[in-house]
């Protein structure tokens, strides 16, 4: 299979290890084979090893080493935040975060909701079975 996600200037990546875990960053320049200069609106531009980055499908259009303001403008223009939150990967991460932050009462409510949903599915299934049998 050919590769679809490349390390390139403007590639949006997710940090998957270390202090900035979970943050979306933009690859702003490549230092050498293992490291990239990486930037995000709320962090100081810094270098990061590729081993700590998971490349996403999102790519924005920036020149090499943009100023912080133009980086933020380009991210707004490409609507990175919304694209990420609507992508299946981004949605899964949001759900994981939500589930991890539930307290006991929330989990009780989830249990009740699942039972209710299961009951509704069984009712519909019973109806369909009856139709099929008759």
């Amino acid at each position: 299979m050919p590769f679809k996600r490349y390390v390139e200037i403007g590639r949006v990546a997710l940090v998957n290890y270390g202090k900035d875990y979970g943050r979306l960053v933009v690859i702003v320049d490549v230092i050498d084979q293992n490291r990239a200069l990486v930037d995000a609106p709320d962090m100081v531009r810094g270098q990061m090893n590729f081993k700590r980055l998971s490349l996403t499908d999102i790519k924005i259009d920036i020149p090499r080493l943009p100023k912080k303001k133009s980086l933020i403008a380009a991210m707004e223009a490409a609507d990175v935040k919304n694209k990420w939150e609507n992508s299946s990967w981004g949605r899964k991460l949001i759900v994981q975060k939500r589930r991890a932050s539930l307290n006991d009462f929330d989990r009780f409510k989830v249990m009740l909701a699942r039972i209710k949903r299961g009951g509704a599915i069984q009712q519909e299934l019973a109806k369909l079975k009856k139709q099929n049998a008759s």
Partner: protein
Amino acid sequence: MGNFRFHQYQVVGRALPTPSDEHPKIYRMKLWATNEVRAKSKFWYFLSKLKKVKKSNGQVLAINEWLSSHLPRFLVALVSLIFERKPTKIKNYGIWLRYQSRTGYHNMYKEYRDTTLNGAVEHMYNEMASRHRVRYHCIQIIKTATIPAKLCKRESTKQFHDSKIKFPLVFKKVRPPTRKLKTTYKASRPNLFM
């Protein structure tokens, strides 16, 4: 970008004043060491090779660390002597060194791409240790310089001088986000495709 093993120091020293020489010449050296004590020791090592002065008949006048920082542009101009000017800019560093191998001394010129000089020097020490089995005390840094892209000599640095650089990451190492979550056995096989 903070934790460097090798710090750059500026050491200033001279021979002690004697009745025959009231104002001996003052010498300044910039060198790399892990701490100040080692920096002073290295200073005397080099100086006694160059001039007729030893630690016992000389004095260190000043020792300062050459730091890298995130100072904004206008402040950097003020303290440009002491701080690394732009630690977010990638530079090509050329390092000239003299090292001792098992059979003799050799000179070498190496190039590194890095954001800071301290990072490049640390990279150099690691690389010399791995590729040539040369340890810290057998390496003397003759000169370091920031090289503009046109004058770089090594293909491995020149291949990154591409404004439209693009390459895939071929192998994704699957690892847990913290070492705490590391387990010997996993429920499913990893997906190594990026």
